[in-house]
């Protein structure tokens, strides 16, 4: 069975971005996920985000591992190269791709099984290395393709479809990221495009690894009463005290400050992440305070969303290694090969 293609005929005249492209130009194949799947909403947000940023599709590279979430890169930006890799290994492939060609914008789509079980080692080291990419973790607390086993992000007491409660402690990717030295950590909800799109834009602007943990309910295996990753649970327990806008650098001057703007963070490319509201005493630069806040909310049964932590002075893997601004893959062979005279001379050390 091959993936169905979306009809390309627009139903109405669609607005164009700076490149003259419509949002349809940022779409991909038709989703084969279940109707109502949270992941499709994330796909829509990513599509909209790249459209609004007017990013040339060829400048994007999409990567994923294995799982429901990992199918989604086929569903957006068909003009971008994509790599559906192996279970849990996307982080490693993205690291190598970024090493070879830093000129592209990398977006990795993963799930809670892919990222927090089989691939948690790679995700941890991806954060430590601070590879410049957007990492979207579509988190539904369950293994969908293998029909409903708990994942490592399932909360204690959350019930499976058969009613069995989970008894193993969950892994929170944001708390993990805080301890791994991640430089951009956000959480959102697939049902909240208004929050998700600015977060995605800020993640693209961030010079380093930007992790967005998106709670994305599984309508088939984890959207029932007793689940803590259901649409209903999220609507009732999400706390959006931290709200941000993303202002591309070109628009910065024209966009006036709004009342209640708490803090501005200027990103590496000159764009601005504006915190519209943060709780009293909250500092998105303070790892310890951020961790305390997330834990306090969690203890109250609440899920804090928004841009939770950011370090805009982030140094990515290329900066650490002093590589050139152009892609290593584009450096001509003549520059790379030292030639026969050098080879003859360096062998003096072997005599």
């Amino acid at each position, binding site marked *: 069975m091959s993936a169905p293609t979306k009809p390309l005929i627009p139903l109405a005249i669609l607005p164009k971005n700076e490149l003259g492209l419509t949002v349809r130009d940022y779409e991909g194949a038709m989703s084969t996920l279940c109707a109502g799947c949270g992941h499709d909403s994330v796909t829509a947000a990513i599509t909209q985000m790249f459209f609004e940023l007017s990013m040339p599709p060829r400048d994007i590279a999409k990567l994923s591992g294995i799982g429901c979430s990992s199918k989604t890169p086929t569903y957006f930006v068909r003009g971008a190269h994509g790599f559906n890799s192996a279970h849990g*290994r996307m982080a490693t492939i993205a690291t*190598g791709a970024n090493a*070879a*060609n830093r000129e592209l914008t990398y977006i990795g789509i993963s799930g809670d099984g892919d990222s927090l079980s089989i691939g948690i080692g790679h995700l941890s080291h991806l954060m430590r290395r601070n590879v410049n990419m957007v990492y979207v973790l579509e988190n539904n607390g369950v293994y969908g393709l293998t029909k409903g086993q708990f994942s490592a992000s399932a909360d204690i007491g959350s019930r499976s479809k058969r009613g069995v409660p989970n008894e193993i402690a969950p892994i929170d990717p944001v708390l993990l990221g805080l301890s791994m030295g991640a430089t951009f950590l956000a959480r959102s909800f697939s049902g909240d495009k208004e929050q998700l799109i600015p977060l995605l834009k800020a993640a693209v602007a961030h010079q380093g690894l930007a992790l967005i943990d998106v709670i994305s309910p599984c309508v088939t295996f984890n959207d029932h009463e007793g689940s803590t990753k259901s649409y209903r649970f999220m609507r009732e327990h999400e706390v959006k005290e931290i709200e941000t806008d993303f202002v591309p650098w070109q628009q910065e001057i024209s966009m006036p400050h709004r009342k209640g703007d708490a803090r501005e963070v200027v990103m590496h490319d000159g764009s601005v992440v504006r915190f519209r509201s943060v709780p009293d005493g909250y500092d998105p630069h303070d790892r310890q305070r951020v961790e305390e806040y997330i834990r306090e909310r969690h203890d109250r049964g609440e899920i804090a969303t928004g841009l939770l932590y950011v370090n805009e002075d982030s140094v990515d893997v290329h900066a650490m290694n002093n590589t050139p601004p152009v892609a290593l893959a584009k450096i001509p062979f003549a520059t790379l090969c*030292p030639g026969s005279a050098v080879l003859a001379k360096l*062998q003096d050390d072997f005599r």
Partner: protein
Amino acid sequence: MTTTLPHHDERTHGESRVNDFALKLANVNGTGSASANSLLMQAIFRMGIPVSGKNLFPSNIQGLPTWYEIRVNKSGYTARALDYDLMVAMNSQTYAEDIAEVASGGYVLYDSSWPLEPHLLRDDVTFLGVPLAKMCLENFSSSRERVLMKNIAYAGALVALLDLDLEVIATLLTESYSRNEKLLASNQKALRLGYDYAREHFSCPLEFRVAPMDETAHSILIDGNTAAALGCLYAGATVAGWYPITPATALMDNFTALCAKYRREPVDAAVPGGPDSYRNNYLILQAEDEIAAIGMVLGASWSGARAFTSTSGPGISLMSELLGLAYYTEIPAVIFDVQRTGPSTGMPTRTQQADILLCAYASHGDTKHILLFPANPHECFEFAVASFDLAERFQTPVFVLSDLDIGMNDWVVPELTWDDNFTPDRGRVLDDRDLAEIAEFFRYTNEDADFVTPRTVPGSDEKGAYFIRGSGHDKFGKYTEVPAEYQQVVDRLKLKHAASAQRVPAPVVIRRPGATVGIITLGSCDLAVREAIDDLSERGIEADFLRVRGFPFAPEVRAFVEEHEHCFVVEQNRDGQLRSLISLETEIDINRMHPVLYYGGFPLSARQVVHSVTTTLEVQS
């Protein structure tokens, strides 16, 4: 204990022993013996004499026994000797076994600061006592120097006993310690102590000794890991992912050092000489494990860079998953496997050739890979360069199967050369101009005579964009579960692999008139097998030689087996993996080949090959 040394005329050997002998040095790991031992080896090399040094060391940082073997041979037979004319016994823990290993009529040099226990003595061996510890105690004040300098002192005694060129030794010491005058002075002093003692107390030189030759003028002394790293530098590799593992670590350490020297491009900077004054045209990533290491290589290769990893058997086991992905999605990758003794952790500091089948078929499902088998550091350099061309030409993983003996020991090999007209074979990659000329791009269509289809790299024109996937795909690169569509792709992969047989390094074949025996081997067995063939000839057995250098096999391999009444396959593993692979892949009856297996972890010796071949032939006749 006093030692009396017989005069020259009383000895059993004559002048024929010039430049033909072997010594073994038994040391304690971590006491600084390595520099003294390699000093001796390097001095013999500089005197123009064919020589080899084999480090037989433990998986340990300090305290366990370690040995170093030096074989000097004017005819170039420098495989492991097994017959030791001289033992330098510096480790009292292993005195008994070390003394037992000396050939009858040979010598034991030992530290006579303490007496040897009488039960260790042998009547057929001459004991040369040098009070090394006592000399160093009297002449050096720091406790560290008193330990370290014992090594240089025994080296000094050997200089006298073996007639090594003092000038050459002095130059080597000066080169080694040019930045540390005090250490240089201590080394010179210790060398002299040992030298003078030997001259005073023994009749120097011994009947086996060195004499200058002119056999190494166009050679270098280099280990395989360094040579492979040089090959990667010259092949234009820019990205490497790796995880530390014995015995492959030095390959990446060397690549890192070479890149820091030859891959730094100066740029205009505010502070000249500061950190912004250069750019690194490379990125070496120390991964969290070997899975990540190969993942990084695939990501970088997918993006159009030349990328590689270096590892050993345990790393290949971990990489197997993604190697299948690379095979099926057709991504180039270069993997150096510096083989060590398995299975499991095995013996990390011992050599073997036991990853042949693992690498040939790495990963689940139907997979087959290209393998290259270098026999020495010179081929490590050449095959490193070739491996990137093959990987990109055939869009598939290529393994370079070196081993610990090649990778970590210094070998005398012809100097490396480079053709400045060399252009790398980047394989079939479509750029924007190519894409403009075609109506549509589909990843696995438009195959060439080698069954290779053109690829595109990320960042290329949207027309070339596609979704690479390890799941079932058709020739258009689209997801499929249709049997015929799936098979069409995997059948082409099989043909592509077979086509690479013509492009991997050809086997080396050496024929002898009237030979009825054929000996097939690979990798570091090369020198021992060639020496064995000369030895067999002296015993009236003429044997042809074939050294496999690549997989898939060239047609000559099967023909060679068919041509010989008796065919042997010499390799360093328990199960005869090369023999099995030849049978599996050429469909020749496995019983047409006798296995000659040596797999205890030390490098192969000609004696072992001769013994196996002659024994088998006797049984057969």
